[in-house]
């Protein structure tokens, strides 16, 4: 063998020998345990701590919220989607309550090309006049809760009970004066809600509170069914005390719940069409002053002047109450 070839071959063999000897020392222990990788790295990755907590983490302290949320249509939207990562909470401070609800809610509910039809979607610019979503919707239970009130009363039994109400609200639910509301043809679900509120004390009125406290739940259902079934014909009458045209412009902000002419789609909210304008004006003033408590009405009535209120009352009082879907 020529000398230079011998040198080359011995060099290669030398490197090979060094490599074979060195490899066990340079290979970490767990490397070939399961294959051509370091088994310990699996343990390392598996041992990392989770960052996102689940809703169960929040449950123990925020019990009430958790119960409300987990019974709602938003139960698939976990706490941390809106409030951020709960890791280190509460040790290291509070979690944020989102300030810009419109921006946050629009992530899922903005009408967008490609979203499945089953997803509830809105045109953000045309929905609720740019108000924060939380004015009307509770993010932990976003469906308007009062809509779920079920009315299954007996109208005949309600008629007997209604004798006690006739002095103020009229024998057929049409009030004889401008201050007390008409009840004929009003939404039954709303009547149940408002009577229950008087009974529970959530809403107070010198005359209504003691009367409602004497009613039991069946009475309330019966009364609501009776009045809802009456015809509102002949309800309107008085001369407008405000500017109807101006009221119509202002009513744009009320359309979402009360409909264009004061007849809304949701029975939880009162019909306003042909209601007594004195009553409407007083109710709005009470909401504005915080005497009647309703988060939705408080925020929409806040910016109204006394003139605006008179105009709105005149507008709704002048509408036809009989253009309902369920005459």
């Amino acid at each position, binding site marked *: 063998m020529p000398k230079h070839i011998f*040198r080359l071959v*011995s*060099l290669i*063999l*030398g*490197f*090979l*020998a*060094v490599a*074979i*000897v060195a*490899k*066990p020392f340079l*290979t970490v*222990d*767990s*490397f*070939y*345990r*399961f*294959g*051509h*990788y*370091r*088994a310990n*790295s*699996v*343990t*390392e*990755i*598996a*041992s*990392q*701590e*989770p*960052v*996102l907590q*689940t809703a169960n983490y929040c449950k123990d302290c925020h019990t009430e919220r958790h119960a409300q949320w987990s019974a709602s249509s938003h139960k*698939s*939207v*976990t706490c*941390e*989607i809106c409030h951020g*990562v709960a890791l280190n909470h509460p040790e290291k401070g509070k979690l944020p309550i989102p300030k810009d609800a419109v921006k946050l809610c629009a*992530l*899922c509910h*903005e*009408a*967008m*090309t*490609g*979203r*499945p039809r*089953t*997803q509830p979607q809105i045109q953000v610019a045309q929905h609720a006049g740019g108000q924060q979503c939380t004015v009307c919707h509770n993010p932990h239970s976003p469906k308007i809760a009062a809509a779920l009130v079920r009315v299954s009363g007996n109208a005949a039994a309600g008629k007997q009970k209604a004798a006690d109400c006739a002095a103020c609200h009229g024998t057929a639910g049409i009030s004889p004066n401008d201050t007390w509301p008409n009840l004929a043809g009003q939404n039954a679900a709303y009547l149940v809600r408002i009577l229950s509120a008087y009974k529970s004390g959530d809403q107070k009125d010198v005359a209504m509170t003691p009367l409602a406290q004497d009613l039991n739940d069946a009475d309330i259902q019966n009364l609501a069914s009776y009045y809802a079934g009456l015809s509102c014909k002949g309800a309107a009458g008085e001369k407008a005390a405000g500017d109807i045209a101006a009221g119509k412009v202002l009513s744009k902000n009320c359309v979402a719940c009360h409909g264009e002419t004061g007849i809304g789609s949701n029975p939880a909210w009162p019909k306003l069409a042909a209601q007594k304008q004195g009553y409407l004006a007083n109710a709005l003033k009470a909401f504005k002053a915080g005497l009647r408590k309703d988060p939705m009405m408080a925020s929409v009535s806040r910016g109204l002047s006394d003139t605006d209120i008179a105009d709105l009352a005149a507008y709704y009082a002048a509408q036809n109450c009989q253009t309902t879907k369920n005459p």
Partner: protein
Amino acid sequence: MNKEDSNPTLEARRGFLAKLAGAATCAGAAAGAAALGAIPTVSAKTEAPPAGASFPTKDYDWTKHQWGFGVDATKCIGCLRCVEACKTENEVPRNAHQFRTWVERYVHLEGEDEVRIDSQQDPVNIEASGSEKEFRFANRYKDAKVEKAFFVPKLCNHCTHPACVQVCPTGATYRTEDGVVLIDHGYCIGCRYCVQACPYGARYFNEEQGVSDKCTWCYHRITKGLQPACVEVCPVGARVFGDQKDKQSPISLFIRNNRVQVLRPETGNAPNVFYVGIDKEVN
């Protein structure tokens, strides 16, 4: 000859090589026996661990699971909460270009043959998000005549025969017994061969750490009985995860009750992310 003899560099090199060759020959002979002894030591390490020992953690035995993932594209609303959650959970760089999971939008416009595809990397969507650290789709097709449109969540397919594992030169990426393809960041040398090899573009290169990175199906969560972060936060149930060995798990039911497909089956990677409700353009 004279010239060569007088060249000190060449002489030094020759001397060095001669010494090295001598040393190597000696070492080779001496090491022969040692090497023969060492080889069995290496092969001994490929043996399975003693029976009964739980691996990789004491509360989790990877031989009892075979994970799988389902995506129902008909449910996805493109809210990108999965992307947000994944970035938070796994410390993925906060930008619109590196993702472990992402969502694509496929839009067929009237009169166009080609489908339009956009994702969070699109400048229009970055602008709608406000910054590269937030994620939302721009409402860019609201005035267009759209024939058909849908969102498709994407992530690592955790293939049964992963091309990325095959090409890794250092054994830094591998497939676990329970069917998850992982990356050993300590052994990754950042050559990016795997990034190139993946037919799904599921891997990205993390410049900060100098390593390749990708979805792990939140291995640190699933080994603790939790769901992957993206599945946990998905508000519409478009992402499904579970154990394929458990016939009543969400993924087993998903595969059984739907007509599912995988992306690019022709590549032979045999993905373990199963899709429902996608067109042939999705791959």
